[in-house]
């Protein structure tokens, strides 16, 4: 088992003929992911190293039965690409595009919620998702992910930051701890998938025995996750929050300060997670060591 994606997931790549799309799409395929088609308007009928390209997501889905899409198109076109995938029957969309305007993200997210409630969007601006040995959608280097072991214990990872997602994978690999699924939810203002969505799935997944969560300053997603953990998560967890010493954000004025209402600092997030029973490390390595202790206790 794993969450969201596994060896049976059929994936299309929107933007497969672009530089990034080709590079990562082929890497995902080489990892063993079922990359069954690409979509680029105007390039239907061609192929990328044997992967057929279609003009629209609807055509690609009709021909292959794909249920997941990897969206790697420029910021201007990303919102339309996400909505096209949803309309064509894709139910799991991973968007790695960085730099989408916040207003577009807000409109796209709320359109999905209203018109396509069964569709899950991961990202935008996220590294993607990997269920080691089964499926890798996005930009994670598959070789840094430790395969899950049949008898466990295995760990689920959920992270808001790209490179720290890799760091978390690496910390576990160094210690030989198997990973069930690693989800990078991305750090944009309106992420399609939240910590809570992932925690709920990990809690329900029999192959996941413990969970690492990597957060960062800003917003209140970690505090909300802490509330959820307290009430719903029985699996042991370790965590790390980046940005204890980061300068106060210059971005928002008064309105932002009120919305967060004192929430958003690294200390506040760490306190909230500790109060929910999560072991919190001062750096990614410490979060890894804490997880190693947890896993040793589960064996």
């Amino acid at each position, binding site marked *: 088992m794993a969450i969201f994606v596994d060896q049976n997931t059929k994936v299309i790549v929107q933007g497969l003929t672009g530089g990034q799309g080709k590079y*990562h799409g082929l890497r995902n395929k080489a990892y063993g992911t079922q990359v069954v088609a690409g979509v680029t308007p105007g390039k239907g009928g061609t192929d990328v190293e044997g992967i057929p390209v279609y003009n629209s997501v609807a055509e690609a889905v009709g021909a292959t039965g794909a249920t997941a899409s990897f969206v790697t198109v420029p*910021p*201007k076109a990303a919102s339309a690409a996400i909505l096209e995938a949803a309309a064509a029957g894709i139910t799991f969309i991973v968007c790695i595009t960085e*730099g*989408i*305007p*916040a*207003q577009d993200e*807000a*409109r796209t*997210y*709320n*359109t999905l919620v*209203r018109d396509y409630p069964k569709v899950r969007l991961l990202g935008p601006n996220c*590294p993607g998702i990997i269920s080691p040995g089964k499926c890798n959608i996005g*930009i*994670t*280097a598959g*070789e*840094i992910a430790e395969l899950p072991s049949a008898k466990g214990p295995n760990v689920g990872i959920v*992270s*808001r*930051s*790209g*490179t*720290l*997602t*890799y*760091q978390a994978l*690496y910390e576990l690999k160094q210690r030989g701890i198997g990973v069930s699924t690693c989800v990078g939810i991305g*750090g944009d*203002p*309106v992420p399609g998938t939240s910590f809570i969505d992932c925690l709920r799935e990990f809690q329900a997944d029999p192959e996941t025995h413990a969970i690492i969560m*990597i957060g*960062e300053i800003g*917003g*209140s*997603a970690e505090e909300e996750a802490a509330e959820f953990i307290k009430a719903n998560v029985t699996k042991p967890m370790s965590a*790390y929050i*980046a*940005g*204890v*010493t*980061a*300068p106060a954000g210059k*971005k*928002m*004025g*008064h*309105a*932002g*300060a*009120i*919305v967060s*209402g004192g929430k958003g600092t*690294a200390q506040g997030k760490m306190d909230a997670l500790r109060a929910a029973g999560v072991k919190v490390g*001062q*750096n*990614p*390595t410490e979060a890894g060591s804490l997880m190693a202790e947890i896993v040793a206790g589960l064996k």
Partner: protein
Amino acid sequence: MDLFEYQGKQYFARYDIPVSRGNVAVTVDEAVAAADAAGYPVVVKAQVQVGGRGKAGGIKLANDAAEVRTHAGNILGMDIKGHVVKRVWVENASDIAEEYYASFTLDRGAKKHLLMLSKEGGVEIEEVAATNPAAILMLHIDPVDGLNAAAAMKAAIDAKIPEKAQQGVADILVKLYRCFVEGDCDLAEINPLILKPTGEVHALDAKVSLDANADFRHPEWEEFKATEELDAREKLAREKGLQYIGLEGTVGIIANGAGLAMSTLDVVNQVGGTAANFLDIGGGANADLMAGALEVINSDKAVKSIFINIFGGITRGEEVAKGIVEALGRVDLRAPIVIRLDGTNAEEGREILKNAGIPESKLTSKPTMLEAAEAAVALAK
């Protein structure tokens, strides 16, 4: 990108939000000309992106040209909490009957737009929120629906805006919302939103923060970028396409990815050091980017050591190492480098660094983030 008040007002005017007649001035003579055009009395306002201008003497009423000359002369060049006043905004003075507050922003938690409206404006809204939260109406707006005239009117009524001002406030809310959405603002705030004795509702101040990601569809933002206040290091970094924030410490930081860069700051702090900057070199840490990053760090005289923290995911370790070696050939560094290189092909990368013939006084390699931080901090002391 945060706008100055005068830019915010110019931006508001594009969306037909009523603002005072006025102009911006960088010299005393220009201020007098602006006052003559706006009509006396005028208010001369320092243009700085920091609160408390009024208390610092940066906002003055002037009844004639001589007074404008005096006040503009005093305010231009004034230091307000470390911000030197380079421009003043001179506008026709408004009579004020009442002061309200209105803003739109994105509520990340709810993933919806948020309107905040209060009949108690003109003061710090945080204070109102702390002492009398019931005085602020908070209304979530679904970005798919938007805000129509009827909903804006209802908001004005619910916020207990006096009846005589409700229609005027509702009109401005609809326009301000359009400015927020179509204008791609992270924040669009009016404080105070005033009611004049003559009955009109009017934006007396403007606080606007723009979403840099929407830059591609706003050619009109060019003029705002020209006045952005960055320190010399930040300017250089921007030219090189790097994510950089200047800080006060002595350890220069280069990392790939914002999260890892933040984490690097944390670790330096944990082992007793202070970071001179935040610098995210991004995914492809090639020689050009690395050379650019080292140049920016090198321009900071406070830097005593440089901590390069790279985790190779897509970026392979040997490419990073080659980039560093090449960059060192191009930039003559004043401070020694400590590098931690991990992840994909890190071994090969470390091997390249070892065999490049760089003396250990200039570059040392450490296997973990913590050890590298300790070494960098020791060198900075």
